[in-house]
């Protein structure tokens, strides 16, 4: 052992290589390798007659993806849902994260952390099916709203075209609620971390210089929380873009990207199209991140 340590001492190159080799192998093969295989697959196409994959590079599958209005619909529908979920999660998470980072006593903070993380220790499938029951026509949510005398409000919401439906469990509104619930912790945690790093003295300085609380929020807290907001929104955005279980258990029958991937590589057997569909979220996230960077979301890092 001593001899090895002595040999490595001063040979920083070897040392670094030894340290990085296992994780790089893992990262290279398992992550990047499979991602490349996926990307390759999307540049193949399927033979219409034999239904077999022709291993020749072509843009035919991507052409298929964009010329069919149904496919474009699916992409836009998923994108709209992801955007709505991300914005809502940010709005809901901000006050919670702000409280946790700035006002909660250490005990209260621990309690909140457990409260935020606890749902993540439960099976994802159990939660989705539980939500279907909660949102059902005779479910506890409608019962609860009835107790509050708010049933007409629910009926009005369900009567809204596109987002409405016969019940919450079979409408996009219900699906949206489940998505927000599911991904909220992924927004709260990075946001809390970002807000915790904003020193109290900056807020005092802002007030000291004459800024009212609203101005301090706009000029100091929000810009400094942007990296956390960006990190959280990448989670909520990409998780919504890729999910196929929630849209298939809760909500209206319209297809989402994740469901398409699942179906194309399974029953339909069109692996190239499935691959092309799964490249869409990657591109959307890349666009989102470059936009966020251009808007200065990472300047405060």
């Amino acid at each position: 052992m001593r001899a090895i340590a002595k040999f490595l001492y001063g040979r920083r190159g070897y040392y670094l290589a030894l340290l990085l080799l296992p994780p790089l192998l893992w990262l290279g093969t398992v992550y990047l390798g499979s991602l490349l295989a996926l990307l390759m697959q999307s540049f193949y196409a399927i033979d219409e007659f034999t239904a077999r994959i022709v291993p020749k590079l072509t843009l035919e599958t991507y052409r298929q993806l964009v010329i069919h209005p149904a496919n474009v619909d699916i992409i836009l529908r998923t994108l709209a849902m992801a955007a709505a979920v991300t914005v809502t999660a940010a709005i809901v998470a901000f006050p919670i994260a702000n409280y946790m980072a700035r006002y909660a006593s250490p005990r209260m903070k621990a309690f909140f952390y457990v409260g935020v993380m606890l749902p993540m220790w439960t099976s994802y499938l159990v939660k989705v099916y539980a939500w279907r029951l909660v949102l059902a026509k005779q479910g506890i949510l409608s019962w609860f709203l009835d107790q509050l005398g708010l049933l007409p409000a629910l009926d009005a919401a369900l009567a809204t075209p596109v987002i409405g439906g016969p019940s919450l469990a079979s409408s996009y509104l219900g699906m949206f609620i489940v998505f927000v619930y599911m991904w909220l912790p992924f927004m709260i945690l990075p946001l809390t971390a970002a807000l915790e790093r904003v020193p109290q003295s900056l807020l005092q300085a802002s007030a000291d210089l004459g800024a009212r609380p609203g101005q301090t929020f706009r000029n100091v807290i929000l810009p400094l929380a942007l990296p956390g907001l960006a990190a959280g929104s990448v989670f909520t955005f990409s998780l919504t873009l890729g999910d196929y279980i929630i849209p298939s258990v809760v909500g209206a029958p319209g297809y989402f990207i994740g469901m398409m991937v699942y179906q194309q590589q399974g029953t339909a057997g069109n692996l190239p199209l499935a691959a092309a569909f799964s490249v869409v979220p990657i591109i959307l996230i890349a666009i989102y991140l470059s936009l966020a960077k251009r808007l200065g979301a990472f300047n405060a890092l």
Partner: protein
Amino acid sequence: MTPAIELAGVSRLFGPVHALDDVSLSVAPGEFFALLGPSGSGKTTCLRLIAGFDRPTHGKILLDGEDVTAIPPFDRSVNTVFQDYALFPHMSVAENVAYGPKVRGVAEPERKRLALEVLELVRLAKLADRSPAQLSGGQKQRVALARALINKPKVLLLDEPLGALDLRLREEMQIELKAIQQQVGITFVYVTHDQGEALSMADRVAVFRDGRMEQLDSPRELYVHPRTAFVARFVGSANVVDGELAKHITGAARAFAIRAEAIEVIAAGAPVPAGALSCEGVLEDLHYHGATSRWHVRTDAGPILAAVRPEGAAPIATARGCRVRLAWSRESLVPLADT
């Protein structure tokens, strides 16, 4: 003339602990006023109460004759230079400085002009477009100062503003701060634990200890006539003599203070100047400072006395354990109210 700041019977309790205990003082307009004390003495609490970051448990705070006890910081004409500077990391130097005018609704070109003007005053106009992360400690300090001065506050509060700087820079900044204060004519309230800083810059100094104000006087008065043992030790690094030694020297048990530089160190057994008091002891420790050296002598009565000896004084034995004689004039004794 209405005082710029007036504290009337102000206390701040944290649970049962008095962070500040019944403090009353008033600061004249244009005055350079220092709050001096060790950490935990209440000086920073006092500053936070004036700024409005905290509210007193009892008492009233008046700014320019107006009761501001219940007024939030953003509505007080007071600005603060924070110990950690608290510069906004996502804004440039100029944007930091222009923050006050911005939140008060001053238009972009006008506030930019104002910011450059104030940056000129602190000699940082060239760095207006830098980000705070690219500045040195001394430069950050000046940006913080400019950001506060741009609002032309009635009172500027400075919370140990030079604490994080090295000695040389600190001395430069002391001179510069004092010059800026005289130039703009704003009342400065300066919190520090460094008695040298307080004495060299302030017009008047309030010495704090355990949440109470021990003495409020001009630097010279504090140094020459400390009223309590604490002030004598903390402000003048003076020897405080009581008990046996006091009785031995003056014939009475009453405590007194004597400054180290008022004590002359001569060889043991050497004749004492006429009318002087003296005692003998053993040299325990000697610190050489160049122009002077500081001698710690254990007197035969027990307590250690510190004496400062100029470099030019007649040479005597300097080995630890040597016997020496200490002598001083009767006038240099300062009677104290307590020990």
